[in-house]
């Protein structure tokens, strides 16, 4: 029995190349890890639970593409049919080859090109129920499965709208070559196997056999040669694909596997970049989901700065400033990313490089030695432009008889996050240290802030030994503890999730539960993790007010679709931004709570604009 | 530059200047600053057949104290009134002052009395109580430079030299500097008004020179009374002068002509001080820019001996200018007084060219 033919060479070479290249990549990534992460990793791979979890995720995300399914079933099926189908072809192909091949080890190409080497015909009727027939059926079925995905992929390229995608990524040269190969692999396999089956009247399953007979019948010329030609092309495109892989988007497949393992070992992105970030960059499949998720794209028509492009320029070793600076860091793309890349931290890494030489001088700040209190309330800079929020908070705190201290009553010392959003962490830390001292001096057990921007940084960077709450959480707590009794005003309200509170702080339910008690809360189109940014983001650096307004107007349109009496949010910046353009009254949750305290004269929510917006 | 435009303004600020019989009051400081100046005024007035008298018992007008904020206006008015009394007693009615600040103060006082007769009455009472004197207000108040301006053509006719470079035949390039108190307060009291005073321009033009305008022409010389008199402010004073020099330098002036006691003093002495402080000189090849009073210049035009005009006490040597104008002088006699005694020769400055 012949076990070798020249045409297997391209495939085999390609295979050798890609395997070594992947090993080298893995080696480099692991080697470049910081010591701490190396420890985490070695510990991780020795912990079965973590390994299992990784394998599970690799299976669910790498083969089944669960996240993608959730987001877009068509895309999900497409990717699954490709990945999972191909995976099975290899596994089952191997098993099948063993039927004909006793040896324990055999050349990798053997199962791949099995039908070239094995094409015995099954004549007798009962043979249909034999093992080989079973395998042929399965293999043909899988091939069909993959081809269906291929068809979808092809349609997606031509008609991305059908997939509900407004935009797909632009490809570079290697991507195109690799893509062409990828698209050719399975048709070639189909043709090769079919011709072979047709010529030898054997070796094929329900698909290849019948298609083969048909082809041989209708195509003139020596079928054997045609078959041989297709075996060659099949091997060639396979080999070429493997060789192209490291230089194309398809490297994301092996990269993602390692990334998943890293994550499960608890390795985090680093502020100043690391091989983890590099791995993330490599793991991007450039599916383009982030482009669709980006408000700057669909609301303001800016379609050059999205995650996928940031990552690509990163891969090309040069990120233009405007790509790094033009982003609201709202986290929507991060939420949507099927690979779960922490794109915001990647962007911040670049922002830190810009102007990394700059220093701050906050020597003018002098410690005011604040009084002691149980609860320290920090309104935040922005709240000083929406005085109705701190006013409401104080009203409530008094009502609840809390021993509190309004720490930034006479003007805020910024929490530091705005500086961090501009990539100025060094400067931010000076402010953070200063505020930490102030806060600890109050000996308070609880820090409450009205500003999600502050809230996020308090939790992530301050590591204070005390509880930290956003006022929406705190007010709910007060209600539950019975410190304040509320009476619903039965206003129809829609709640807007501020980026830093929702996606940033994972606080979705507290404000809703609270609003449920004092108003008739209506759902809005995009909410929770999918909520839109108000457009006022401090992270958006080099973008004109006009553009920002577009984002705001678009968000308002979606939020006010149900025409509520009040648009409620829990962030002074969101409130200010919306108030500028909203026809509907915009208020902070704290104001509503304050109004809901029985015996207070209720303000009529009829004014077109937020009065505070006029004052400030 | 549209000369027509300036002429038009000059025409609008014609002031009446008496032709003869002047009662002259001196400046407090000029005899020390430029001893020859006032003497020369008398000399050429005599030569031109004009009658000028003065009264040795006249005092300061107190303007210097008034502008240093140490003499109240009431006091100043009474002292001014006394000067007028001296004029009245001498039977004169054309009052001529040597000092610009005095001129400013006299104008200010007269203007005040014009608008507030009761103040004038009060002053008469003060004067009467203090000195028993009575006075008439002058019919004509002029500054000595006004008078010289009026006689500039006669001086030119009688003159032996002109503001012309003998070698090149080109007019000498002159910048004029008018004392702040000349017409800033009352533009119509000065020849040519406040913005483009004509009093010195007229002399320079008629004596053959070329007037050059420069950006900081209007800027104060730097004296500013308080600024100089209080040592703490002196840096401010010299910086102000430097600003003028820096601004005029590109125009290559060959002479600075002034009509105020303070200005020539500071424009002259500060050139030395600046050169010693930072090595900067403003004239061609290390020389300074000679500074003169209109009397000294008139004297030169009329052919008086430079040393009789007191030019030897100038900090910035005038010899280069004399050479240009072709005025002969005896270097040997430079440091001799009227009786031929040696008055001592200052040691040569580090940077400023000295002769």
């Amino acid at each position, binding site marked *: 029995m012949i076990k070798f033919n020249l045409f297997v060479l391209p495939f085999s070479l390609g295979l050798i190349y890609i395997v070594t290249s992947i090993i080298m990549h893995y080696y480099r990534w692991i080697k470049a890890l910081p010591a701490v992460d190396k420890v985490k990793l070695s510990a991780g791979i020795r912990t079965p639970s973590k390994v299992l979890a990784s394998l599970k995720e690799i299976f669910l995300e790498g083969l089944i593409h669960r996240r993608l399914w959730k987001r877009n079933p068509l895309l999900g099926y497409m990717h699954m049919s490709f990945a999972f189908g191909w995976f099975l072809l290899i596994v089952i192909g191997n098993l099948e080859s063993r039927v004909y091949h006793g040896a324990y080890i055999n050349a990798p190409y053997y199962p791949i090109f099995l039908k070239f080497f094995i094409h015995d015909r099954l004549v007798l009727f009962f043979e249909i129920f034999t093992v080989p027939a079973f395998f042929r059926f399965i293999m043909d079925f899988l091939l069909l499965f993959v081809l269906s995905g291929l068809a979808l992929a092809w349609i997606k390229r031509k008609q991305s709208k059908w997939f509900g995608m407004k935009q797909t990524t632009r490809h570079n040269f290697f991507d195109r070559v690799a893509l062409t190969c990828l698209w050719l692999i399975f048709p070639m396999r189909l043709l090769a196997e079919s011709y072979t089956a047709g010529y030898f009247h054997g070796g094929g399953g329900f698909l290849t056999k019948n298609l083969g007979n048909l082809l041989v019948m209708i195509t003139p010329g020596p079928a054997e040669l045609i078959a041989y030609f297709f075996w060659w092309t099949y091997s060639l495109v396979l080999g070429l694909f493997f060789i192209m892989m490291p230089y194309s988007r398809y490297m994301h497949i092996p990269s993602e596997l390692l990334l998943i393992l890293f994550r499960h070992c608890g390795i985090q992105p680093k502020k100043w970049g690391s091989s983890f970030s590099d791995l993330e960059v490599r793991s991007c499949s450039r599916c383009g989901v982030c482009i669709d998720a980006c408000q700057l794209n669909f609301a303001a028509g800016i379609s050059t700065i999205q995650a996928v492009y940031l990552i690509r320029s990163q891969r090309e070793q040069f990120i233009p400033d405007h790509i790094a600076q033009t982003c609201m860091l709202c986290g929507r793309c991060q939420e949507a990313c099927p690979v779960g890349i922490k794109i915001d931290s990647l962007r911040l890494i670049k922002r830190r490089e810009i102007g990394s030489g700059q220093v701050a001088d906050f020597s003018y700040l002098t410690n005011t030695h604040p009084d002691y209190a149980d609860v320290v309330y920090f309104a935040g800079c922005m709240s000083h432009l929406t005085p109705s929020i701190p006013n409401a908070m104080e009203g409530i705190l008094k009502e609840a008889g809390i021993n509190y201290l309004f720490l930034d009553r006479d003007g805020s010392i910024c929490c530091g996050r705005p500086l961090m959003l501009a990539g100025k962490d060094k400067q931010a830390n000076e402010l953070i240290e200063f505020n930490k001292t102030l806060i600890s001096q109050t000996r308070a057990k609880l820090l409450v802030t009205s500003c999600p921007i502050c809230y996020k940084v308090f939790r992530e960077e301050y590591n204070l030994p005390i509880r930290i709450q956003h006022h929406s959480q705190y007010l709910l707590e007060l209600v539950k503890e019975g410190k304040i009794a509320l009476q619903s005003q039965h206003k129809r309200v829609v709640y807007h999730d501020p980026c830093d509170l929702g996606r940033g702080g994972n606080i979705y339910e507290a404000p809703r539960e609270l609003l449920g008690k004092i108003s008739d809360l209506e759902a809005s189109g995009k909410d929770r993790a999918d909520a839109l940014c108000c457009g006022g983001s401090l992270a958006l650096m080099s973008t004109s007010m006009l553009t920002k307004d577009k984002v705001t107007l678009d968000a308002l349109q979606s939020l006010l679709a149900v025409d509520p009496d009040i648009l409620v949010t829990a962030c002074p910046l969101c409130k200010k931004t919306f108030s500028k353009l909203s026809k509907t009254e915009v208020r902070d949750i704290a104001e509503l709570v304050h109004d809901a305290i029985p015996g207070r004269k209720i303000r009529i929510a009829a004014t077109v604009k937020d009065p505070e917006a006029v004052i400030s | *530059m*549209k000369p*027509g*435009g*300036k002429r*038009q*303004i000059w025409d609008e600020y014609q002031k009446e200047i008496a032709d003869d019989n002047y009662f002259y009051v001196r400046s407090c400081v000029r005899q020390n600053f430029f001893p020859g100046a006032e003497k020369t005024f008398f000399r050429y007035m005599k030569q031109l057949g004009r009658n000028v008298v003065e009264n040795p018992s006249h005092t300061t007008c107190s303007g210097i104290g008034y502008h240093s904020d140490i003499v109240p206006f009431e006091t100043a008015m009474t002292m001014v009134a006394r000067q007028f009394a001296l004029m009245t007693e001498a039977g004169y009615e054309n009052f001529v002052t040597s000092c610009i600040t005095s001129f400013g103060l006299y104008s200010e006082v007269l203007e005040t009395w014009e608008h507030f007769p009761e103040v004038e009455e009060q002053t008469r009472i003060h004067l009467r109580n203090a000195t028993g004197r009575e006075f008439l207000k002058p019919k004509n108040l002029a500054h000595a430079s006004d008078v010289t301006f009026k006689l500039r053509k006669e001086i030119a006719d009688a003159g032996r030299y002109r503001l012309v470079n003998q070698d090149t035949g080109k007019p000498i390039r002159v910048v004029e500097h008018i004392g702040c108190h000349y017409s800033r307060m009352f533009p119509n009291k000065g020849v040519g*008004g*406040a*913005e*483009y005073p004509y009093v010195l321009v007229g002399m320079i033009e008629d004596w053959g020179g070329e007037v050059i*305008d*420069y*950006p*900081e*022409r*209007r800027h104060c010389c730097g004296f500013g009374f308080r600024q100089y008199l209080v040592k703490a402010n002196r840096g401010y004073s010299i910086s102000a002068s430097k600003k003028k020099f820096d601004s005029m330098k*590109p*125009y290559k002036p060959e002479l600075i002509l002034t009509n105020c006691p303070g200005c020539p003093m500071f424009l002259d002495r500060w050139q030395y001080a600046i050169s010693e402080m930072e090595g900067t000189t403003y004239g061609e090849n290390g020389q300074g820019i000679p500074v003169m009073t209109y009397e000294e210049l008139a004297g030169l035009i009329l052919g008086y001996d430079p040393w009789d005009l007191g030019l030897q006490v100038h900090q910035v040597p005038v010899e280069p200018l004399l050479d240009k104008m072709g005025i002969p002088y005896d270097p040997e006699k430079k440091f001799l007084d009227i009786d031929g005694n040696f008055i001592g020769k200052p040691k040569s400055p580090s940077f400023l060219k000295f002769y």
Partner: protein
Amino acid sequence: MDNTVIVIGGGISGLTAAGMLAQQGLDVTLLEKENETGGHLARWDRLFPDRKKASDVLDFAMKGLNNAKIVTGVTITGISRHQNGFTVTSPLSQYTASALLVATGFELFEARKKEEYGYGIYNNVITSADLEEQFKSGRKVLTSEGKTPGRIGFIHCVGSRDEKVGNLYCSKVCCVTGVKQAIELKEMFPASEVFNFYMDLRMFDRHFEELYYEAQQKWGVSFIRGRLSECSENPDGSIILKTEDTLTGKPLKMTIDLLVLLSGFVPSGGTRGISKMLGLQEGDDGFINSADQHSQNNLSGIEGVFLAGALKGPISVSEAVADARAAAAQVTCYISSIAVTHD
């Protein structure tokens, strides 16, 4: 008594009013001292804020005048009053009418009076009117040395809001004129830098502020808050400005190639003359006071004598047109009322 009206002054106010009156069938005679009607507008190129051609506005005003009698080159020497109304005499002839509408307008402040700005002395100092004439002529605006100006300065409030020239009032329209002309110069010389030196920018009417915004955003015109104190001339003919940049609190010195003075309004010679003859009420600012600035702004306080336009103080063209129409309405009412009383 008849329905004759004499309109004194053939500027945009006079023309508009005369047109209205004529269209209402009154017998209108318009007297203009110059040989051409149109007043300032006839010498102006384009109008703020929409850059409309001044000539278009004039043409529109002229349309209504078909059956009004227009006499130009008339020097009025006397006005006498009698029971039939008024007789206006000029060296050549006499005109009688039941009512007089005075629209003798304003003239621009004589920039020369602001000596320290050097108008008429320094070659490259011109007024907004000079600039407008150059625009109208279609020639490129050049420095006196024939070069294209690289840096241009506009000085606001020349002869306005200035105790030193005896005018405390604001001339109102210079601000937006400066902005408009700055834009026009930027269009002509995109490479040039244009600066406006102002005390306040009074963009009082519709679309003015937007024009200011456009000047900054689209044309990069710079605005420096500070009033020119004095300027002098460089040997090369360029001008050195001395002002304060009040927003940084520092004195500022700047060399510019062309300086444009935005001259304010003063009552015209005609206004002063006629007001003497009729004994109109002159305000402290020299402009004519109406019977009541709010409700009777076209009445002079003298029966049969009406007021229209800039003789009552600085106004824009659109305001002048509106005021002239209002005045015309007042005159018509008056004519019909006396017709009634005399029947």
